[in-house]
């Protein structure tokens, strides 16, 4: 291990130590770290709200808080987690850090816009934090009119302004990624030489730039109605509340794919690496990402099956919702087939990736229940929905986030993480997660509506299980904070390519220098050219 002995040369972290060099940096790697710090903070704010809710739900009578506080808690949890953690999480951190490196570029296409995007994110986040600290709001993250515009008394305007601004941060990130992928690929790097992570980010970015402006306009209309009492959504003044839902879900359903597609990309990197085998069905995975992004725009009405859309519209959206599940199924099959005749080892990133497959599949299959109209009529707006989307968002996306964090930790920080602790946290997270959210499927089918802090006695047992699981999950999420923090200083140094991975980001030193590569990277003809020990390669 030469690099372990070598004195640390100048890398992007040690290039310069002034505050200015961080806050005015245009280096995609430093911006990724700025984002990383910000979303970590938001993750723990949102998580804190979740923990408080699970504590309150231990008792069916809603003690020890009032309804107002509970309603503000779930709204906080939703807004912070959706817009300030899940949507930006992987693209702005790992996407920013790795996308240019994976295609052999020095930076993204528009480095200054990239920095601006972080400032917008922070500005938007400040508005939301302000709204929360001066009393919060109780509309739920979905802001359904006319409750949000005419009846609620919270700090709607501040929160909506924050989300509006953060939306532009998303748009800039998406725009940057799309153009970067089109224009800055290293010589010899064709579309079919790109890792799936890049294809996923491309699809994600398409959704970001197409859907987010619609949210911005919707929130603008919402805020104006709230401020000056015009009936754009309020039926008392001639508006149609369902119009709000159409516009809102036109963004918010594709937003689900903003959250999960990058996770799928991460898993597509980790699985071949730790199976030492070429990714199975590479082109199918590429196009599955793109089709998810496009078909994802056709299914938003499944959030409105009982909201009063016509029966025909319901049937149409139901059919399309089944259609969008096909590419997701293809992905799961391909990951599993990649394991076949591989040489599998179980480092922490692989544990997270395997956990992702299991949890995402459960989330996806329960999605089919919800696409089936009569079942949806019964279980929508209950804990079944809550469990379903947490399996996708937390079981899928957050698990993938931790997988990515461990997989690329050596590249980002130049240090190895402690393997034993990491494996322990991965297993704990998986168990805690299932304990928290599996009971909620049953609660939902039994008929416990979501957003209830007072509930019928018969639901208590399962709620206690769920809260217990949440405790385990909280420990599992806090653990990495300590052992990864520890590893920054005391852990052993990482070599350039500790996993022997084929992605060209691993050709750069760990941590990479400011310009990413010390010499022009060698672009392989096809990605994932892993050689399985014992296989008869041509």
């Amino acid at each position, binding site marked *: 291990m030469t690099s372990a002995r070598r004195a640390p040369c100048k890398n992007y972290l040690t290039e310069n130590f002034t505050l200015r060099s961080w806050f005015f940096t245009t280096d995609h790697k430093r911006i990724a770290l700025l984002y990383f710090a910000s979303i970590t903070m938001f993750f723990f704010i949102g998580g804190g709200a979740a923990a408080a809710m699970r504590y309150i739900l231990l008792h069916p009578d809603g003690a020890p808080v009032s309804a107002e506080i509970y309603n503000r808690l779930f709204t906080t949890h939703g807004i912070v987690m959706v817009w300030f953690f899940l949507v930006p999480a992987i693209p702005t951190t790992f996407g920013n850090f790795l996308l240019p490196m994976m295609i052999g570029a020095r930076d993204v296409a528009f480095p200054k816009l990239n920095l601006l995007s972080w400032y917008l994110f922070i500005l938007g986040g400040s508005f939301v934090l302000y709204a929360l600290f001066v009393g919060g709001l109780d509309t739920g993250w979905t802001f359904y009119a006319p409750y949000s515009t005419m009846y609620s008394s919270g700090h709607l305007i501040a929160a909506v302004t924050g989300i509006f601004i953060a939306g532009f941060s998303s748009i800039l990130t998406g725009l940057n990624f799309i153009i970067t992928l089109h224009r800055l690929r290293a010589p010899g790097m064709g579309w079919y030489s790109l890792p799936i992570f890049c294809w996923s980010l491309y699809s994600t970015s398409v959704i970001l730039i197409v859907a987010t402006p619609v949210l911005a306009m919707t929130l603008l209309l919402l805020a104006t109605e709230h401020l000056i009492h015009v009936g754009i959504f309020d039926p008392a003044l001639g508006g149609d509340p369902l119009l709000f839902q159409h516009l809102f879900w036109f963004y918010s359903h594709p937003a689900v794919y903003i959250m999960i597609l990058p996770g799928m990309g991460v898993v597509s990197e980790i699985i071949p690496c730790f199976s030492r085998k070429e990714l199975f069905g590479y082109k199918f995975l590429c196009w599955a990402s793109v089709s998810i992004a496009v078909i994802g725009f056709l299914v938003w009405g499944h959030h409105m099956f009982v909201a009063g859309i016509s029966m025909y519209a319901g049937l149409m959206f139901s059919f399309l919702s089944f259609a969008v599940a*096909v590419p997701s199924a293809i992905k799961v099959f391909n990951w599993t087939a990649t394991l076949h005749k591989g040489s599998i080892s179980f480092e922490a990133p692989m544990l997270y990736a395997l956990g992702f497959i299991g949890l995402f599949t459960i989330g996806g299959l329960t999605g089919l229940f919800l696409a*089936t109209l009569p079942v949806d009529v019964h279980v929508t707006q209950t804990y079944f929905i809550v469990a379903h989307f947490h399996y996708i968002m937390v079981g899928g996306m957050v698990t993938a986030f931790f997988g990515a964090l461990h997989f690329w930790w050596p590249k980002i920080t130049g240090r190895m993480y402690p393997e034993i602790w990491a494996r322990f946290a991965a297993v704990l997270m998986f168990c805690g997660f299932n304990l928290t959210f599996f009971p909620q499927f049953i609660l939902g089918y039994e008929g416990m509506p979501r957003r209830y802090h007072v509930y019928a006695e018969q639901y208590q047992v399962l709620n206690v299980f769920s809260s217990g699981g949440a405790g385990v999950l909280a420990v599992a999420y806090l653990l990495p904070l300590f052992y990864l923090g520890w590893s920054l200083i005391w852990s052993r140094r990482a070599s350039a390519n500790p996993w022997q991975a084929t992605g060209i980001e691993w050709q750069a030193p760990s941590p990479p220098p400011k310009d990413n590569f010390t010499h022009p990277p060698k672009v392989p003809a096809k990605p994932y050219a892993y050689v*399985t020990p014992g296989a008869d390669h041509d």
Partner: protein
Amino acid sequence: MFDFLPPQAASLSPEIDFLFFGLLIISALVLGLLFTLLLLYCIKYRRGSGASRTGQEEKSWRIEIGWTAATLIAFVALFFWGADLYARLYEAPPDTLDIFVVGKQWIWKVQHPDGQAEIDALHVPVDRDIRLIMASQDVIHSFYVPAFRLKRDVVPGRYESLWFHPIRTGSFQLECSEFCGTDHARMTGEIVVMSQADYANWLATQAHGDSFAGAGEKLFRSLGCGGCHGPGSTVHAPDLAGLYGKTVALADGGFAHADDDFLRDAILLPQKRAPAGYAPVMPSFAGQLDESQILALIVYIKSLDEKPRKTP
């Protein structure tokens, strides 16, 4: 069947449960297959194991098309299963017993056709097709009865209807499932399904003055509607007798079905779908009437169409 399930209290609940368990079994099979393969591969092909790695699958497209097609066929089948049941859930059969429900922060107010009113409770007879006509006074609520496996959002500004056919007597939980404000979690009630005889008794013992239509008639008079819509009126206004259920020509050249929503708009937003051939002089009653008063007026207008038919 399973203890944890809420009782199957409406005619279609067993079918919904059947569909649910169908999905559950399919999911369990898929999940079982997937987890078995994952586990098998993880053990057999763990690093350092002696299993043969020769003959790795190179060409993938046959396999890809195979599982894509299989998934697609399964999904289409599930869609049609669900679609058929949904169509039956959605469309009410003819000759239902109509009961009116108004949701407001944070109570459910129920009006029976004969004038009985109740709060946070709904008494219905077993073995009859019952249709709820629902309106909201303020925000979006959602009428949810887990035992019936049914829910429907109650959106302000329009009527939503929900039908069911109770098949067993008993008391079942009613919940609001769309977040509607501070006491959303306390906007619950009970659905009491009674035998037909008990229901008749219950109706009789409930103190009530006028029938619901009668209350509407009183309102109709006190608001002075008859001044224009009455038989001897000099103002050129639509005749309301026999209007309900008809097709009405609109001033903009379209047509509308004179149903509850149409009458509601005619009272509150008279110009939204103004009928052809009349001057737009109808005043709006928005803000002067609450949802149950509007319902009473509509029920009264509906009752007007029965009289001419009885005396041919």
